Protein backbone atom coordinates (compact mmCIF):
# COMPACT_ATOMS: atom_id res chain seq x y z
CA UNK A 1 0.00 0.00 0.00
CA UNK A 2 1.09 3.60 -0.60
CA UNK A 3 1.80 4.51 3.02
CA UNK A 4 4.84 4.72 5.31
CA UNK A 5 4.65 2.51 8.40
CA UNK A 6 6.48 2.69 11.69
CA UNK A 7 8.86 -0.01 10.47
CA UNK A 8 9.88 2.14 7.54
CA UNK A 9 10.60 5.33 9.49
CA UNK A 10 14.28 4.47 10.15
CA UNK A 11 14.89 3.87 6.44
CA UNK A 12 13.11 7.10 5.50
CA UNK A 13 15.47 9.13 7.67
CA UNK A 14 18.44 6.98 6.71
CA UNK A 15 17.95 8.49 3.26
CA UNK A 16 18.01 11.96 4.82
CA UNK A 17 21.22 11.17 6.71
CA UNK A 18 22.80 9.97 3.44
CA UNK A 19 22.30 13.29 1.72
CA UNK A 20 23.58 15.24 4.72
CA UNK A 21 26.71 13.10 4.76
CA UNK A 22 27.22 14.03 1.11
CA UNK A 23 26.59 17.72 1.68
CA UNK A 24 28.48 18.05 4.96
CA UNK A 25 31.41 20.12 3.66
CA UNK A 26 29.19 22.28 1.47
CA UNK A 27 26.98 23.21 4.41
CA UNK A 28 29.91 23.84 6.74
CA UNK A 29 31.50 26.15 4.19
CA UNK A 30 28.26 28.08 3.68
CA UNK A 31 27.85 28.44 7.43
CA UNK A 32 31.46 29.48 7.97
CA UNK A 33 30.98 32.44 5.64
CA UNK A 34 28.38 34.00 7.89
CA UNK A 35 28.46 32.06 11.12
CA UNK A 36 30.46 29.49 13.04
CA UNK A 37 30.75 26.81 10.37
CA UNK A 38 29.20 23.92 12.25
CA UNK A 39 26.02 23.39 10.22
CA UNK A 40 27.16 20.46 8.05
CA UNK A 41 28.54 18.67 11.09
CA UNK A 42 25.43 19.03 13.21
CA UNK A 43 23.05 18.05 10.40
CA UNK A 44 24.95 14.91 9.52
CA UNK A 45 25.49 14.04 13.18
CA UNK A 46 21.83 14.53 14.10
CA UNK A 47 20.27 12.70 11.16
CA UNK A 48 22.83 9.90 11.38
CA UNK A 49 21.62 9.27 14.91
CA UNK A 50 17.93 9.50 14.08
CA UNK A 51 17.31 6.08 12.43
CA UNK A 52 18.59 4.22 15.49
CA UNK A 53 16.59 6.52 17.76
CA UNK A 54 13.42 5.79 15.75
CA UNK A 55 14.16 2.10 16.16
CA UNK A 56 14.86 2.31 19.85
CA UNK A 57 11.96 4.60 20.67
CA UNK A 58 9.24 2.97 18.66
CA UNK A 59 5.92 3.58 20.44
CA UNK A 60 3.60 0.63 19.62
CA UNK A 61 2.80 1.24 15.98
CA UNK A 62 2.11 4.94 16.40
CA UNK A 63 4.11 6.82 13.76
CA UNK A 64 3.33 10.17 15.40
CA UNK A 65 4.44 9.27 18.88
CA UNK A 66 7.51 7.48 17.55
CA UNK A 67 8.58 10.56 15.61
CA UNK A 68 7.99 12.81 18.61
CA UNK A 69 9.97 10.66 21.01
CA UNK A 70 12.90 10.04 18.65
CA UNK A 71 13.13 13.70 17.67
CA UNK A 72 13.32 14.69 21.32
CA UNK A 73 16.28 12.35 21.73
CA UNK A 74 17.86 13.70 18.56
CA UNK A 75 17.78 17.20 19.97
CA UNK A 76 20.11 16.04 22.75
CA UNK A 77 22.58 14.76 20.20
CA UNK A 78 22.76 18.14 18.44
CA UNK A 79 21.59 20.97 20.68
CA UNK A 80 22.78 23.64 18.21
CA UNK A 81 20.31 26.06 16.66
CA UNK A 82 19.56 24.00 13.57
CA UNK A 83 19.71 20.72 15.47
CA UNK A 84 17.05 21.97 17.85
CA UNK A 85 14.97 23.44 15.03
CA UNK A 86 15.02 20.18 13.07
CA UNK A 87 14.05 18.21 16.17
CA UNK A 88 11.28 20.66 16.96
CA UNK A 89 10.00 20.39 13.39
CA UNK A 90 9.87 16.62 13.51
CA UNK A 91 8.21 16.67 16.93
CA UNK A 92 5.49 19.04 15.81
CA UNK A 93 5.09 17.16 12.52
CA UNK A 94 4.79 13.96 14.53
CA UNK A 95 2.11 15.56 16.68
CA UNK A 96 -0.16 15.86 13.57
CA UNK A 97 0.20 12.10 13.14
CA UNK A 98 -0.41 11.12 16.75
CA UNK A 99 -2.42 7.89 16.88
CA UNK A 100 -1.82 7.07 13.20
CA UNK A 101 -0.31 3.72 12.29
CA UNK A 102 0.96 4.95 8.93
CA UNK A 103 1.61 8.03 6.84
CA UNK A 104 -0.42 8.50 3.71
CA UNK A 105 -0.43 11.46 1.31
CA UNK A 106 -2.75 13.50 3.53
CA UNK A 107 -0.66 12.53 6.53
CA UNK A 108 2.56 13.55 4.82
CA UNK A 109 1.14 16.93 3.89
CA UNK A 110 -0.04 17.43 7.47
CA UNK A 111 3.37 16.35 8.75
CA UNK A 112 5.11 18.92 6.54
CA UNK A 113 2.77 21.67 7.71
CA UNK A 114 3.37 20.60 11.31
CA UNK A 115 7.11 20.59 10.68
CA UNK A 116 6.99 24.21 9.54
CA UNK A 117 4.83 25.15 12.54
CA UNK A 118 7.36 23.49 14.84
CA UNK A 119 10.16 25.54 13.31
CA UNK A 120 8.16 28.73 13.52
CA UNK A 121 7.21 28.19 17.15
CA UNK A 122 10.65 27.13 18.26
CA UNK A 123 12.47 29.84 16.32
CA UNK A 124 9.88 32.53 17.01
CA UNK A 125 10.45 33.44 13.39
CA UNK A 126 8.25 34.47 10.49
CA UNK A 127 8.50 33.81 6.80
CA UNK A 128 10.87 36.33 5.28
CA UNK A 129 13.33 36.27 8.21
CA UNK A 130 15.80 34.33 6.07
CA UNK A 131 15.69 31.01 7.88
CA UNK A 132 14.97 27.37 7.26
CA UNK A 133 11.30 28.33 7.63
CA UNK A 134 11.39 30.02 4.25
CA UNK A 135 12.26 26.67 2.67
CA UNK A 136 10.10 24.30 4.67
CA UNK A 137 7.16 26.70 4.93
CA UNK A 138 7.05 27.09 1.16
CA UNK A 139 7.40 23.33 0.83
CA UNK A 140 4.47 22.64 3.15
CA UNK A 141 2.30 25.19 1.33
CA UNK A 142 3.06 23.72 -2.08
CA UNK A 143 2.24 20.23 -0.85
CA UNK A 144 -1.02 21.34 0.77
CA UNK A 145 -2.00 23.23 -2.38
CA UNK A 146 -1.44 20.16 -4.49
CA UNK A 147 -3.54 18.03 -2.16
CA UNK A 148 -6.35 20.59 -2.15
CA UNK A 149 -6.39 20.66 -5.97
CA UNK A 150 -5.87 16.94 -6.35
CA UNK A 151 -7.24 14.89 -3.44
CA UNK A 152 -6.00 11.71 -5.14
CA UNK A 153 -2.35 12.74 -5.01
CA UNK A 154 0.02 10.08 -3.63
CA UNK A 155 3.08 10.26 -1.38
CA UNK A 156 5.39 10.86 -4.31
CA UNK A 157 3.25 13.69 -5.67
CA UNK A 158 3.27 15.34 -2.26
CA UNK A 159 7.03 15.13 -1.64
CA UNK A 160 7.79 16.26 -5.20
CA UNK A 161 5.59 19.32 -4.69
CA UNK A 162 7.29 19.96 -1.35
CA UNK A 163 10.77 19.89 -2.88
CA UNK A 164 9.61 22.26 -5.63
CA UNK A 165 8.31 24.61 -2.94
CA UNK A 166 11.63 24.34 -1.07
CA UNK A 167 13.53 25.21 -4.26
CA UNK A 168 11.55 28.42 -4.55
CA UNK A 169 11.89 29.10 -0.84
CA UNK A 170 15.67 28.73 -0.88
CA UNK A 171 15.90 30.98 -3.94
CA UNK A 172 13.84 33.64 -2.18
CA UNK A 173 16.19 33.76 0.84
CA UNK A 174 18.92 35.19 -1.39
CA UNK A 175 17.32 38.61 -1.09
CA UNK A 176 16.42 38.43 2.60
CA UNK A 177 18.36 40.02 5.47
CA UNK A 178 19.11 37.67 8.38
CA UNK A 179 17.65 38.70 11.73
CA UNK A 180 18.59 35.70 13.88
CA UNK A 181 21.65 33.96 15.20
CA UNK A 182 25.24 34.38 14.30
CA UNK A 183 24.49 35.29 10.66
CA UNK A 184 22.64 38.41 11.79
CA UNK A 185 25.97 39.87 12.79
CA UNK A 186 27.26 39.49 9.26
CA UNK A 187 24.00 40.59 7.61
CA UNK A 188 25.71 42.40 4.75
CA UNK A 189 27.75 39.37 3.74
CA UNK A 190 24.62 37.25 3.47
CA UNK A 191 22.81 39.09 0.68
CA UNK A 192 23.01 37.34 -2.68
CA UNK A 193 23.60 33.87 -1.27
CA UNK A 194 20.83 31.59 -0.02
CA UNK A 195 20.38 31.04 3.72
CA UNK A 196 22.33 27.96 4.77
CA UNK A 197 19.54 26.80 7.08
CA UNK A 198 17.05 26.98 4.22
CA UNK A 199 19.43 24.94 2.08
CA UNK A 200 19.63 22.34 4.85
CA UNK A 201 15.81 22.24 5.01
CA UNK A 202 15.67 21.58 1.29
CA UNK A 203 18.24 18.78 1.57
CA UNK A 204 16.17 17.12 4.27
CA UNK A 205 13.17 17.11 1.93
CA UNK A 206 15.28 15.78 -0.94
CA UNK A 207 16.43 12.96 1.31
CA UNK A 208 12.80 12.06 2.00
CA UNK A 209 12.05 12.39 -1.70
CA UNK A 210 14.85 9.96 -2.54
CA UNK A 211 13.31 7.34 -0.29
CA UNK A 212 9.67 7.89 -1.26
CA UNK A 213 10.30 7.99 -5.00
CA UNK A 214 12.24 4.75 -4.73
CA UNK A 215 9.75 2.79 -2.63
CA UNK A 216 6.48 4.39 -3.79
CA UNK A 217 7.23 5.32 -7.38
Amino acid at each position, binding site marked *: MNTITCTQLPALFQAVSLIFNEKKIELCDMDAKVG*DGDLGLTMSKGFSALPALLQANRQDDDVGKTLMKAA*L*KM*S*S*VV*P*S*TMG*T*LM*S*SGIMEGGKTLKGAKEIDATGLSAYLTGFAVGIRN*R*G*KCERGNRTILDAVGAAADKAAELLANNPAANLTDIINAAVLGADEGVEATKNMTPV*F*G*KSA*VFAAKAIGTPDQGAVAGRYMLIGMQNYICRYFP
Partner: protein
Amino acid sequence: MKKVINNPQDYTDDMLRGIYAAHANQVKYVESDLRCYCVANKKPGKVAIVTGGGTGHLPLFLGYVGENMLDGCGVGGVFQSPSAEQIYNISKEVEDGSGVLYLYGNYTGDIMNFDMAVEMCEMDDIQTRSIVGADDVNSHHDLKLRRGVAGIYFMYKCAGAKAAQNGTLDEVLTSAQKAKDNTRTVGFALTPCIIPEIGHSNFTLADDEMAMGMGIHGEPGIWNGPIKTADKIAEESLKTLLDDMPVASGEEVCILINGLGATSLEELYILSGSVSKILEIKGIKIYRTFVGEYATSMEMAGASISICKMADDEMKQQIDMPVCTPFYCQK
Protein backbone atom coordinates in the same frame (compact mmCIF):
# COMPACT_ATOMS: atom_id res chain seq x y z
CA MET B 1 47.19 26.81 20.56
CA LYS B 2 48.79 27.22 23.99
CA LYS B 3 46.44 25.44 26.33
CA VAL B 4 46.82 23.12 29.27
CA ILE B 5 44.51 20.39 28.01
CA ASN B 6 44.38 16.77 26.98
CA ASN B 7 42.36 15.75 23.92
CA PRO B 8 40.50 18.86 22.65
CA GLN B 9 37.38 16.72 22.21
CA ASP B 10 37.40 16.03 25.94
CA TYR B 11 37.79 19.67 26.94
CA THR B 12 34.35 20.16 28.46
CA ASP B 13 34.10 16.78 30.15
CA ASP B 14 37.69 16.86 31.47
CA MET B 15 36.93 20.26 32.94
CA LEU B 16 33.76 18.93 34.55
CA ARG B 17 35.55 15.91 35.97
CA GLY B 18 38.07 18.27 37.53
CA ILE B 19 35.29 20.36 39.01
CA TYR B 20 33.38 17.45 40.50
CA ALA B 21 36.60 15.97 41.93
CA ALA B 22 37.47 19.31 43.54
CA HIS B 23 34.03 20.15 44.91
CA ALA B 24 32.32 16.84 45.57
CA ASN B 25 30.69 18.11 48.75
CA GLN B 26 29.05 21.07 47.04
CA VAL B 27 27.97 19.92 43.58
CA LYS B 28 26.95 16.74 41.77
CA TYR B 29 25.56 15.58 38.45
CA VAL B 30 22.43 13.59 37.67
CA GLU B 31 21.35 11.00 35.12
CA SER B 32 25.00 9.87 34.87
CA ASP B 33 25.50 12.91 32.65
CA LEU B 34 28.42 15.15 33.69
CA ARG B 35 26.69 18.04 31.99
CA CYS B 36 23.64 17.90 34.26
CA TYR B 37 25.22 20.03 37.00
CA CYS B 38 23.27 20.39 40.28
CA VAL B 39 23.84 21.73 43.74
CA ALA B 40 24.57 18.85 46.14
CA ASN B 41 22.31 19.98 48.95
CA LYS B 42 19.30 21.96 47.93
CA LYS B 43 17.35 24.00 50.43
CA PRO B 44 13.99 22.20 50.47
CA GLY B 45 10.81 23.83 49.22
CA LYS B 46 12.35 26.89 47.66
CA VAL B 47 11.94 27.97 44.05
CA ALA B 48 14.67 26.37 41.95
CA ILE B 49 16.77 28.49 39.62
CA VAL B 50 18.38 26.78 36.68
CA THR B 51 20.80 28.34 34.24
CA GLY B 52 22.85 27.00 31.38
CA GLY B 53 24.95 27.83 28.38
CA GLY B 54 28.09 26.98 26.52
CA THR B 55 31.40 26.08 28.14
CA GLY B 56 34.26 28.59 27.98
CA HIS B 57 33.00 31.35 30.25
CA LEU B 58 33.94 30.21 33.75
CA PRO B 59 32.88 31.05 36.38
CA LEU B 60 29.82 31.57 34.18
CA PHE B 61 27.50 29.66 34.18
CA LEU B 62 27.93 26.75 36.53
CA GLY B 63 30.08 28.72 38.96
CA TYR B 64 27.03 30.44 40.35
CA VAL B 65 25.35 27.22 41.41
CA GLY B 66 25.44 27.14 45.19
CA GLU B 67 24.15 28.55 48.44
CA ASN B 68 21.76 31.48 47.95
CA MET B 69 22.34 31.60 44.22
CA LEU B 70 21.42 28.94 41.64
CA ASP B 71 20.42 25.30 41.89
CA GLY B 72 21.43 23.80 38.59
CA CYS B 73 23.17 24.43 35.30
CA GLY B 74 23.00 22.77 31.91
CA VAL B 75 26.53 22.61 30.56
CA GLY B 76 26.92 22.81 26.79
CA GLY B 77 30.04 22.18 24.71
CA VAL B 78 32.35 25.12 24.05
CA PHE B 79 30.12 28.06 23.09
CA GLN B 80 27.20 25.64 22.53
CA SER B 81 23.85 25.23 24.20
CA PRO B 82 23.08 22.39 26.59
CA SER B 83 20.28 20.13 25.36
CA ALA B 84 16.65 20.47 26.36
CA GLU B 85 16.76 17.03 27.88
CA GLN B 86 19.69 17.96 30.10
CA ILE B 87 17.91 21.08 31.26
CA TYR B 88 14.79 19.04 31.89
CA ASN B 89 16.69 16.41 33.87
CA ILE B 90 18.33 19.07 36.00
CA SER B 91 14.95 20.69 36.58
CA LYS B 92 13.44 17.44 37.78
CA GLU B 93 16.32 17.02 40.23
CA VAL B 94 16.29 20.49 41.77
CA GLU B 95 12.61 21.41 41.56
CA ASP B 96 10.88 20.89 44.87
CA GLY B 97 7.25 21.85 44.38
CA SER B 98 7.68 25.60 44.03
CA GLY B 99 8.60 25.74 40.37
CA VAL B 100 11.73 26.52 38.37
CA LEU B 101 13.04 29.79 37.01
CA TYR B 102 15.13 29.47 33.86
CA LEU B 103 17.63 32.32 33.86
CA TYR B 104 20.20 32.33 31.07
CA GLY B 105 21.73 34.41 28.28
CA ASN B 106 19.94 35.72 25.21
CA TYR B 107 21.35 33.33 22.58
CA THR B 108 19.22 31.54 19.97
CA GLY B 109 20.43 28.01 20.70
CA ASP B 110 19.94 28.43 24.44
CA ILE B 111 16.49 29.94 24.06
CA MET B 112 15.30 27.07 21.91
CA ASN B 113 16.58 24.42 24.25
CA PHE B 114 15.26 26.08 27.39
CA ASP B 115 11.90 26.57 25.63
CA MET B 116 11.85 22.92 24.76
CA ALA B 117 12.66 22.04 28.36
CA VAL B 118 9.74 24.24 29.43
CA GLU B 119 7.42 22.10 27.32
CA MET B 120 8.88 18.93 28.78
CA CYS B 121 8.38 20.27 32.31
CA GLU B 122 4.78 21.20 31.47
CA MET B 123 4.07 17.55 30.72
CA ASP B 124 5.29 16.77 34.25
CA ASP B 125 3.26 19.65 35.74
CA ILE B 126 6.46 21.40 36.80
CA GLN B 127 5.80 25.13 36.79
CA THR B 128 8.39 27.19 34.94
CA ARG B 129 9.18 30.81 34.17
CA SER B 130 11.91 32.01 31.85
CA ILE B 131 14.00 35.16 31.62
CA VAL B 132 17.13 35.94 29.64
CA GLY B 133 20.02 38.26 30.41
CA ALA B 134 20.41 40.81 27.60
CA ASP B 135 22.67 43.48 29.04
CA ASP B 136 25.25 44.07 26.27
CA VAL B 137 24.39 47.58 25.08
CA ASN B 138 26.63 47.55 22.02
CA SER B 139 25.23 44.28 20.68
CA HIS B 140 21.93 45.80 19.46
CA HIS B 141 19.89 48.94 19.81
CA ASP B 142 16.78 46.83 20.45
CA LEU B 143 16.74 45.78 24.13
CA LYS B 144 15.15 42.45 23.23
CA LEU B 145 17.86 41.50 20.75
CA ARG B 146 20.84 42.25 22.96
CA ARG B 147 23.02 39.35 24.00
CA GLY B 148 23.59 38.52 27.64
CA VAL B 149 27.03 39.02 29.16
CA ALA B 150 28.50 39.63 32.63
CA GLY B 151 25.51 41.64 33.89
CA ILE B 152 23.62 38.38 34.35
CA TYR B 153 25.55 38.21 37.64
CA PHE B 154 23.18 40.78 39.14
CA MET B 155 20.16 38.78 37.97
CA TYR B 156 21.61 35.66 39.57
CA LYS B 157 22.30 37.56 42.77
CA CYS B 158 18.85 39.12 43.09
CA ALA B 159 16.84 36.12 41.97
CA GLY B 160 18.97 33.83 44.13
CA ALA B 161 18.43 36.00 47.18
CA LYS B 162 14.66 36.14 46.62
CA ALA B 163 14.46 32.36 46.23
CA ALA B 164 16.60 31.88 49.36
CA GLN B 165 14.06 33.99 51.24
CA ASN B 166 11.34 31.64 50.03
CA GLY B 167 9.85 34.04 47.50
CA THR B 168 7.29 32.57 45.11
CA LEU B 169 8.18 31.72 41.53
CA ASP B 170 6.68 34.97 40.29
CA GLU B 171 8.44 36.97 42.99
CA VAL B 172 11.75 35.41 42.06
CA LEU B 173 11.05 36.23 38.42
CA THR B 174 10.22 39.80 39.38
CA SER B 175 13.52 40.15 41.23
CA ALA B 176 15.40 38.87 38.21
CA GLN B 177 13.44 41.20 35.95
CA LYS B 178 14.17 44.18 38.16
CA ALA B 179 17.89 43.43 38.07
CA LYS B 180 17.68 43.00 34.31
CA ASP B 181 15.87 46.29 33.78
CA ASN B 182 18.51 48.13 35.77
CA THR B 183 21.63 46.51 34.35
CA ARG B 184 23.72 47.50 31.34
CA THR B 185 27.13 46.29 30.17
CA VAL B 186 29.79 47.44 27.74
CA GLY B 187 32.74 45.22 26.86
CA PHE B 188 35.89 45.30 24.79
CA ALA B 189 38.48 42.77 23.70
CA LEU B 190 42.25 43.04 23.26
CA THR B 191 43.07 39.52 22.06
CA PRO B 192 40.98 36.60 20.76
CA CYS B 193 40.53 33.17 22.29
CA ILE B 194 40.75 29.76 20.68
CA ILE B 195 38.07 27.07 20.68
CA PRO B 196 40.02 23.89 21.57
CA GLU B 197 38.46 21.74 18.86
CA ILE B 198 39.09 24.39 16.22
CA GLY B 199 42.65 25.19 17.28
CA HIS B 200 42.99 28.71 15.91
CA SER B 201 41.37 32.01 16.78
CA ASN B 202 38.38 33.24 14.80
CA PHE B 203 39.54 36.86 14.59
CA THR B 204 42.72 38.85 14.95
CA LEU B 205 43.51 42.28 16.31
CA ALA B 206 46.71 44.14 15.50
CA ASP B 207 49.30 44.45 18.26
CA ASP B 208 48.12 47.91 19.26
CA GLU B 209 44.41 47.36 18.63
CA MET B 210 41.33 46.83 20.74
CA ALA B 211 37.75 46.01 19.71
CA MET B 212 35.08 48.03 21.49
CA GLY B 213 31.75 46.24 21.84
CA MET B 214 33.06 42.85 20.77
CA GLY B 215 30.99 39.88 22.00
CA ILE B 216 32.32 37.11 24.23
CA HIS B 217 32.32 34.69 21.30
CA GLY B 218 34.19 37.20 19.16
CA GLU B 219 31.10 38.82 17.60
CA PRO B 220 32.30 42.04 15.92
CA GLY B 221 32.02 45.22 17.95
CA ILE B 222 31.31 48.83 17.08
CA TRP B 223 34.89 49.84 16.39
CA ASN B 224 38.38 48.36 16.16
CA GLY B 225 41.20 50.80 16.68
CA PRO B 226 44.31 51.74 18.64
CA ILE B 227 44.12 50.72 22.27
CA LYS B 228 43.07 53.56 24.56
CA THR B 229 44.04 54.33 28.13
CA ALA B 230 41.99 52.95 31.00
CA ASP B 231 40.63 56.45 31.66
CA LYS B 232 39.50 56.87 28.04
CA ILE B 233 37.96 53.42 27.90
CA ALA B 234 36.07 54.10 31.12
CA GLU B 235 34.89 57.44 29.77
CA GLU B 236 33.58 56.04 26.50
CA SER B 237 32.02 53.01 28.16
CA LEU B 238 30.24 55.06 30.80
CA LYS B 239 28.91 57.39 28.13
CA THR B 240 27.45 54.43 26.26
CA LEU B 241 26.04 52.93 29.45
CA LEU B 242 24.53 56.12 30.83
CA ASP B 243 23.14 57.27 27.47
CA ASP B 244 21.32 53.98 27.32
CA MET B 245 20.19 53.97 30.95
CA PRO B 246 20.37 57.41 32.53
CA VAL B 247 21.41 57.56 36.17
CA ALA B 248 20.85 60.81 37.99
CA SER B 249 23.30 62.45 40.34
CA GLY B 250 22.61 61.12 43.83
CA GLU B 251 21.35 57.76 42.60
CA GLU B 252 23.18 54.61 43.64
CA VAL B 253 24.69 51.92 41.41
CA CYS B 254 26.74 48.77 41.72
CA ILE B 255 29.60 48.40 39.29
CA LEU B 256 31.10 45.21 38.01
CA ILE B 257 34.51 45.29 36.34
CA ASN B 258 34.82 41.91 34.69
CA GLY B 259 37.92 40.38 33.17
CA LEU B 260 37.51 38.31 30.00
CA GLY B 261 40.22 35.86 30.96
CA ALA B 262 43.76 37.03 30.25
CA THR B 263 43.54 40.56 31.55
CA SER B 264 45.24 40.88 34.93
CA LEU B 265 43.48 41.83 38.13
CA GLU B 266 45.88 44.77 38.38
CA GLU B 267 44.48 46.21 35.15
CA LEU B 268 40.91 45.55 36.22
CA TYR B 269 41.48 47.61 39.35
CA ILE B 270 43.09 50.39 37.32
CA LEU B 271 39.97 50.40 35.14
CA SER B 272 37.76 50.25 38.21
CA GLY B 273 39.55 53.27 39.59
CA SER B 274 38.93 55.14 36.34
CA VAL B 275 35.24 54.27 36.44
CA SER B 276 34.79 55.33 40.05
CA LYS B 277 36.56 58.67 39.43
CA ILE B 278 34.11 59.52 36.63
CA LEU B 279 31.06 58.42 38.60
CA GLU B 280 32.20 60.52 41.53
CA ILE B 281 32.39 63.59 39.31
CA LYS B 282 28.86 62.87 38.08
CA GLY B 283 27.64 62.57 41.66
CA ILE B 284 26.58 58.96 41.12
CA LYS B 285 27.08 56.96 44.29
CA ILE B 286 28.67 53.54 44.20
CA TYR B 287 26.84 51.14 46.45
CA ARG B 288 29.24 48.27 45.85
CA THR B 289 32.08 47.49 43.45
CA PHE B 290 32.77 44.01 42.11
CA VAL B 291 36.09 43.42 40.37
CA GLY B 292 37.32 40.10 38.98
CA GLU B 293 36.52 37.40 36.49
CA TYR B 294 32.75 36.89 36.45
CA ALA B 295 32.11 35.95 32.82
CA THR B 296 35.12 35.14 30.68
CA SER B 297 35.88 33.93 27.21
CA MET B 298 38.62 31.45 28.02
CA GLU B 299 41.94 33.23 27.42
CA MET B 300 40.54 36.31 25.69
CA ALA B 301 42.08 39.58 26.93
CA GLY B 302 39.72 42.45 27.59
CA ALA B 303 37.12 43.45 30.10
CA SER B 304 33.56 44.59 30.54
CA ILE B 305 31.99 47.27 32.68
CA SER B 306 28.50 46.70 34.05
CA ILE B 307 26.31 49.11 35.91
CA CYS B 308 23.36 47.98 37.98
CA LYS B 309 21.18 50.75 39.29
CA MET B 310 19.89 50.16 42.81
CA ALA B 311 16.16 50.43 42.26
CA ASP B 312 15.18 50.06 45.91
CA ASP B 313 16.27 48.79 49.31
CA GLU B 314 15.18 45.27 48.59
CA MET B 315 17.60 45.15 45.69
CA LYS B 316 20.42 46.35 47.91
CA GLN B 317 19.65 43.64 50.44
CA GLN B 318 19.68 41.08 47.67
CA ILE B 319 23.04 42.36 46.45
CA ASP B 320 24.37 42.16 50.00
CA MET B 321 23.11 38.67 50.73
CA PRO B 322 26.02 36.32 51.47
CA VAL B 323 26.41 33.58 48.87
CA CYS B 324 28.76 30.65 48.59
CA THR B 325 29.49 28.44 45.64
CA PRO B 326 32.68 26.52 44.81
CA PHE B 327 33.62 29.44 42.55
CA TYR B 328 32.27 32.48 44.30
CA CYS B 329 31.87 33.46 47.91
CA GLN B 330 30.53 36.75 49.18
CA LYS B 331 30.15 37.60 52.81
